[in-house]
């Protein structure tokens, strides 16, 4: 028995969300009094693989294959499920990232395992049960989900578990995987990266703006503030519906749900559907000219005032602090 954790890499590098997943899986391995095996797929430097030991991995399995340089959903899920079977893993952990969302359900079916995606807590194993929390009803409630199958699959919500460094190095082993041709039906035609912008779903800070900005030409100051804070840029639904900003920046019930440590909402009144998508943020700051804007009711800090005056002042204050 063991715990298996799949660690994603982006162009050969592990990210913070990967270390979160690893730390979370280590805590589960400790609960079960067993070892933690990490699995990496793709071309990652040996030193980076060994460094996973610093977050609790006892051993790292690596699969580096010509056909697996880019993510192939079916093939990757086949590898992870195969590793889980070989190791007799009782729990399989991965990130609830865009990639993890595609993988976890397929792995769960292969292993006949119950799945909690968007997990926000460690499993409660009292009375021999296995109960994990996740957000439901667009973060208006939390569900306690009991997994009743022998094997469990958990996809951890980004920013939901703190990275814990344990020190140490892991041993690295190649994992032998027999490619199955039918797992490669999907052909990647093109990968388009949006410059060096911070990705919204795993951003620690999000700066978001709404109709209060009056037009797309006024987003320069939002982008400047976001860049200074190392934050991702987001917007409300009316803004993306009006094509002022692209759909992938829309956060809210029908857009992306985010759970950053800090969410700054500028010129967004706070419709219930918008709040549903951001309410699991740790700290919410609201800047709005309307003191009665509903967003203030769920905010931690608020400033009532004109965004066109306040945002440049915020930018100046952050710059002053940094210099």
């Amino acid at each position, binding site marked *: 028995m063991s715990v298996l954790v799949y660690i994603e890499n982006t162009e050969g590098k592990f990210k913070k969300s990967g270390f979160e997943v690893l730390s979370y899986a280590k805590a589960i391995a400790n609960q079960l009094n067993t070892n933690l095996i990490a699995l990496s797929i793709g071309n990652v430097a040996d030193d980076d693989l060994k460094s996973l030991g610093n977050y609790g991995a006892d051993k790292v399995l690596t699969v580096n294959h010509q056909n697996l340089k880019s993510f192939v959903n079916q093939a990757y899920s086949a590898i992870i499920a195969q590793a889980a079977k070989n190791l007799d893993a009782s729990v399989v952990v991965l990130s609830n990232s865009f990639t993890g969302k595609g993988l976890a*359900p397929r792995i769960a079916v292969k292993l006949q395992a119950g799945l909690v995606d968007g997990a926000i807590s460690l499993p409660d194993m009292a009375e021999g049960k296995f109960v994990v929390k996740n957000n439901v009803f667009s973060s208006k409630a939390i569900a*306690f989900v009991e997994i*009743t199958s022998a094997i469990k699959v958990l996809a951890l919500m980004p920013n939901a578990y703190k990275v814990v460094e344990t020190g140490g190095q892991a041993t690295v082993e190649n994992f032998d995987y027999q490619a199955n041709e039918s797992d490669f039906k999907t052909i990647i035609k093109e990968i388009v990266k*949006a410059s060096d912008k911070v990705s919204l779903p795993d951003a620690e800070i999000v700066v978001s703006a709404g109709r209060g900005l009056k037009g797309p030409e006024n987003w320069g100051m939002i982008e400047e503030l976001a860049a200074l804070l190392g934050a991702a840029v987001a917007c409300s639904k009316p803004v993306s519906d009006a094509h002022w900003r692209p759909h992938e920046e829309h956060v809210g019930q029908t857009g992306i749900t985010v759970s950053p440590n800090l969410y700054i909402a500028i010129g967004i009144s706070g419709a219930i559907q918008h709040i549903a998508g951001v309410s699991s943020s740790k700290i919410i700051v609201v800047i709005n000219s309307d003191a009665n804007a509903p967003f203030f*009711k769920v905010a*931690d800090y608020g400033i009532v005032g004109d965004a066109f005056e306040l945002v440049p002042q915020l930018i100046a204050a952050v710059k002053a602090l940094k210099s």
Partner: protein
Amino acid sequence: MKILVCISNVPDTTTKITFTDNNTQFNTQGVQYILNPYDEIALARAVELAENEQGTVTVLHVGDANADATLRKALAIGASDAVRINAQPTDAYFVASQIAAYAQDKGFDMILTGRESIDYNGTKVAAMLGEMLDIPSVSITKKITIEGNTGILEREIEGGKEVLAIPFPFVAGTAEGVADWKIPNMRGIMSARTKPLLVVEPIEVQGLSKIVKFESPASRTSVQLIDASEVSKLIDLLQSQGFLKN
């Protein structure tokens, strides 16, 4: 071209979420149900594609007769026929198993679901279906076009997108951007009344998980207002909490 669109019947986005039976059951009292918004754009795109390719669109729901109004709405939007698998869903595995059992021998070229439902918010059914039917799946799809017998799909990735070519059949979970929401017209509403709605009995299958309890999220302490003339105070507060790194 044959397209299957799987739909959920979910509480209206403005619903106040409360629970009964010692916080173990969702309180459905007075709740208005709607077609899940992500499923609605899946359906809208399916109808567009079927119009271009002289295809058909079947909508499917796993649930009880309370969803029939939602299935009729889907027919009004443009689906050709509707199927309801008459079972109370327990978890995503149960739902996907029911859909896979139905779809298995029907020759669908494409199966669409919304990326998630706005009630239980899982992104599970599309990929589970793909696995059960042993065909490719894309869980968060931003765009779908057709070239012959191949779907050209845009998948959302961290900080960008990936363009994929996938031969029929495949499963896709649709996100915003895949189509605009469609409002049914009078002709659609009238014709929906006479389109077939088939009720199918479920297969025997055990779920692998269950919700044992609900909880409301911790409410925030009331907002601390900062005067507009003291913007730097906000920055100081944020810095003291470790948000601003030099």
